[in-house]
């Protein structure tokens, strides 16, 4: 099975306070460290496990500059055989659809049975997978949290739905799946693993290599335009209790009693 996994380099935001730059058009990126989008990492692990069982190879692709190569190498160190970098100034400022268009270009140049994306990334839009599937006229399933290969034409996939339930589907190959976290336990990649694949050639494609017109990608073609960033106002918010722990605890007990929180 030939599997393509689309990955994205994103800033690590969990431990860091995100601040907005002085122009208000982006976050302050100077002190941030980047890594592969968590959802994408699960997708790559899943692809590698599938190939380990069923044969074939995994290719990882990303849209970005040279710095994005690092995440490709990290995923290749996990076991993806090939990496492809889509690097062109023309891609800059693309919205989700522009990114999907770029990926469509590279998918059409290859011959993939299965295309995976992470369910979402830093922008929280959860859009590229579904758009890509529609552009390619392929079946799509989102938020996939289990995959079972039925044969070389069909997969059985589970989708995570509300209430912690799982929706089981049979889906024909080729198809596009967006992967939810928790589907597996991604393996560790250390510095050594990355160095091992440091010299593997990663082909780079520009927009014109993929036959993509300037009107389809980039800021100009974006249908959803970003105006600015801002820190949400905290609104009325909670009434903050202050004082010593003891005092707070006593106040809280009174409130709990009043609200029926104590039995």
């Amino acid at each position, binding site marked *: 099975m030939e599997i393509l996994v689309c990955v994205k380099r994103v800033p690590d*935001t969990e431990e860091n*306070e*995100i601040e907005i730059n002085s122009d208000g058009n982006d*976050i302050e990126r100077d002190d941030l460290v980047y890594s592969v989008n968590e959802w994408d990492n699960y997708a790559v692990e899943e692809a590698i496990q599938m190939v380990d069982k069923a044969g074939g190879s995994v290719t990882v692709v990303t849209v970005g500059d040279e710095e994005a190569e690092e995440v490709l190498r990290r995923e290749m160190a996990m076991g993806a055989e090939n990496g492809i970098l889509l690097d062109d100034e023309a891609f800059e400022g693309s919205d*989700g*659809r522009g990114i*999907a268009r770029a990926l469509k270009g590279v998918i059409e140049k290859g011959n993939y049975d299965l295309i995976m994306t992470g369910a979402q990334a*830093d*922008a*929280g*839009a*959860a*859009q590229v997978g*579904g*758009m890509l*599937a*529609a*552009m390619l006229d*392929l*079946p*799509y399933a*989102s*938020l996939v949290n289990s995959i079972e290969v039925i044969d070389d034409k069909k997969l*059985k996939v589970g*989708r*995570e*739905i*509300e*209430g*912690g*339930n*799982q*929706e*089981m*589907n*049979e*889906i024909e190959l080729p*198809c596009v799946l967006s992967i939810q*976290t928790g589907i597996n336990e991604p393996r560790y990649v250390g510095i050594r693993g990355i160095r091992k694949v440091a010299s593997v050639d990663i082909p780079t494609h520009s927009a014109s290599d993929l036959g993509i017109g300037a009107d389809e990608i980039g800021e100009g073609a974006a*249908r*959803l*335009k*970003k*105006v*600015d960033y*801002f820190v949400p106002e905290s609104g009325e*918010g*909670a*009434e*903050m*209790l202050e004082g010593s*722990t*003891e005092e*707070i*605890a006593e106040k*809280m*007990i009174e409130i*709990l009693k009043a609200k029926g*929180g104590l*039995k």
Partner: protein
Amino acid sequence: MAQIFAYIEHKDGVADDSALELVSAAKKIDAGADVNALVVGSGVDGLCNDMAASYKEVWKIDKDDVAYPNAEIIRGMLLNILPGDAIVLFPHDTFGMDLSPGLSVKMDSPFASDVVDFEGTDGSDLKMIRQEFGGQVSTHVKADISSGAVITVRPGVFEPDESKSAGGSVVDKTGDAGDVATKRKFLEVVVAEIGDVDITKSEVLVSIGRGIEEEDNIEIAQELAEAMGADVSCSRPIVDAKWLEKSRQVGTSGQTVKPKVYMAMGISGSFQHLGGIKGNPYIIAVNKNPKAPIFQVADIGVVADILEFMPELTEKIKEAS
């Protein structure tokens, strides 16, 4: 202004909470617009009639193929019936996420997902607010909606419109929707196991998040819950770490709870988590981080380390009783 359509999610003949939230959302896009509902399913007449109270027209697709909402089939059907310049709203949930990005491509419309607010139009541009980086920052975005749009709206942020004064009518579009072939076949829903405690029935919940730090500390929360006569629930990271069973998880990907009092202990308050809290409970939040989003939705907040605060509170409750 084009027509606005709201997709009505439903289960067992009952509309999802989002059904009336989308009425408010649509009015925020354009207070004067005609807002129609899309109801797709099998045997949905009753639901359509209910919706007619809130929407001008209720477009009905009533077919056995869509007895279960298979996004792949419904997308094709919607394409067959929607006008090209329709503005289509979905709740940003596991169904909306599944269907809408592809629909926007097929309709050749702009797509905005997980919108938390609308700020009116500027010419043909609709201004919207989204969040990025796990809700840490917000962003204004705009899209030219003159040729339609597909938008997913965050559940729970718009007040449901209970006015029910639309006096609308039901329009059967089943014929127009046609038959749609699919390469993705729905098989079944595997229902999550209910653990020893059904938190959806709990009146008081002590809910823990990342702030609990270690598996062993869960005991501290259990002791507090015991003293209060409450049950213990949690956020997703606790379940991902396998410290509590899945049936204890509150959130869109877990259980939906309707307690009277909800104690959010060391929970930052992502919208996926808040999406699982319904019925407007009294929320008490304790978190080390004064900027934690949970404080925006809580009634009472305390900036403290839950590992220190909870034992103290437990002690005081025991003393008081």
